[in-house]
């Protein structure tokens, strides 16, 4: 997977592994990416395509 972030938004994005290298993006293995903990106050948005989506009708 590929990690990108933006300081001004306090936001981290996880995407599918990027096809091209980008000095502002960081490629991670699944094991490390899944265990990622963002800095306090930051949010992680996982945009990887998950085959399953859990939805609860309550």
């Amino acid at each position, binding site marked *: 997977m590929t990690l990108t972030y933006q300081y001004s938004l306090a936001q981290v994005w996880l995407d599918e592994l990027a096809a091209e290298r980008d000095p502002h993006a960081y490629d991670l293995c699944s094991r490390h990416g899944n265990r990622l903990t963002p800095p306090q106050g930051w949010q992680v948005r996982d*945009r990887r395509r998950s*085959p399953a*989506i*859990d*939805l*609860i*009708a309550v």
Partner: protein
Amino acid sequence: MSGPTHPPLRLAPAVVTWVVAWVAGMILAGPLVAVAVDADFDSLATQDLAAVAASGWAVSIVVLVFASRRWGTGDFWADYAVRFRPSDVLGIPAGALAQFVAVPLLYWPLQQLWPDTFASDEIERRAQEMVDRADGWLVVLLALVVVVGAPVVEELMYRGLLQRSLMSRLGPALGLFAGSVWFALVHPQPVEYPGLLLAGLVFGGFVVATDRIGGAILAHAAFNAAGLAMALS
């Protein structure tokens, strides 16, 4: 619970019943209980979520009983088509398939077109937050809320009352669709609307096919159980 099904309530009384139950249960009773247990209504702990949900459901049941006596036959089970037959067990695989297969297939093209809006973590946020706040025995309590309480009360309200009344006015197909849209729109997160519309169509399909809500209740329970299991994993 295997007697004959009576015709549904007429549409106007059904809508009034829903409005009264919604206002009294979800807008008044729920927040009042949240205040009484000193809970943050926007971030409910599992035991508070259970208390708030149970208060809303209790009000809904009381309103449904009143409506049955006032506008129906007075036979609660018959007025809301609460019947079970062995074939209703088909609701279990249908609900699980909706969760595991149909929902991801539905969201896939939406995620291609609008990856930020329909990011999986956005769709799953509410389920994940519920699970994140539960551990130990609270997981059992959460399971009772989402796999037992919600399917029973919501199917009574949205399929037994509203969809059947809509079908009697609009016909089966349009009534099913209108009831499912209604069901989706009462949930708090717009990103969940497509998935919940689909779920409503699956649950409501059992009512169209069988004229009872037994299969819908089991499908709803299986759908939520599968979603809960995935969120816990």
